């Protein structure tokens, strides 16, 4: 393994950690709004780190560009969908969690 390999492995592990934390939040947080909060962090940052790691490993600008495009699309879709879910929950009158 060379330097870039170690960096890629580090990025992938960090991304996996974000996904783990996000999943934990999705399962353990008390209401829909806080769960969305956990989920979007995992998706956006976790996937970003994984895409970076994979781009380093791919060794081709074309593949790296495609991967980053996928990340941007997921960012766009994820942000919009979590907005729609939160909006739907509000319209249905689901209250926010209070301690």
């Amino acid at each position, binding site marked *: 393994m060379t330097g870039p390999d170690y960096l890629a492995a580090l990025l992938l592990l960090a991304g996996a950690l974000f996904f783990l934390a996000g999943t934990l939040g999705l399962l353990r947080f008390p209401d829909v709004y806080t769960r969305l909060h956990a989920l979007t962090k995992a998706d956006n940052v976790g996937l970003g780190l994984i895409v970076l790691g994979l781009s380093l490993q791919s060794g081709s600008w074309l593949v790296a560009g495609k991967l980053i495009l996928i990340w941007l*699309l997921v960012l*766009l*879709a994820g942000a*919009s969908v979590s*907005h*729609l879910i939160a*909006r739907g929950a509000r319209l249905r009158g689901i209250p926010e969690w209070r301690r």
Partner: protein
Amino acid sequence: MSLLQTGIDALLALGLVWLAWRALACPDLFRGIVLFIAFGLLMALAWVRLEAPDVALAEAAIGAGLTGALLLAALARLNRIAPAGTRADTREAWRNAPALLLVLAGAGLGLAVLSLLPEPAGLQAQVAAELGRSGVSNPVTAVLLNFRGYDTLLEVLVLLLALLAAWSLEAEPPRREAAPGPVLDLLLRLLLPVLVLAAAYLLWAGAHAPGGAFQAGAVLGAAGVLALLAGWRLQPHLTGLPLRLAIVIGPGGFLLVAWALLLTGRPLLEYPPALAGALILLIETLATLSIAATLAVLFQGSRPAAEPPA
């Protein structure tokens, strides 16, 4: 095969069975459908592990995406028709089941699969031998559109038949949904060109890489579903003949090609090798349009009215 890969495969296979079980057994139907969509996504991963990327694309777009959208839309309509009917008490039913019969059937199937596993006999060699004359270099597309083109012709007709049946039943008059707000509209404006581009790419790439008419049609159809969700509707002058043309142009074009080839004295759907690539691309392009239109209209559920509903 390394231990890690075996672990991933075992985990994925177990996850599939567990999700299917939960999708069928949990009392809330909405939850069941969401679990079923997750099941479809895991299926797509399983196809990747089985080295079937074409199937993975079709599963993710159609099996998980569009089927899930259809199920959720039907559940919403069911909620309006019969609000009490969306919860089903499953526990009573699970008890008095023909369990023994099913265990026997499962054991028989399992034994059959285990006995067949050691010697998988495939058609790889035959497909590879004829691939050069098929007009494409992706073996799956060659099988779909050339070697077993009649399967695909019938499949496109099945899709048309389902739409005709759905339209003639007319389950529910069309209804204006609440506007979903500006975010979905904006998302759609950004995504629509990307989705059209992705569909065109999948269609073109299908000749030499994973992709093809069904995956492209599903992506384009998903764009249509998104547009319907955002409250976009076809202009009234487009819902008549133009929409119907878009729906039948795929099967119609396919039938015309088959008929023209029969007229030249060839067997059914056996293309001349020199023309095969062009004919396959033509059929696939028309089929993509029809598949997309049919899937989007099936999602809408009712025949699009020629004039806006009062």
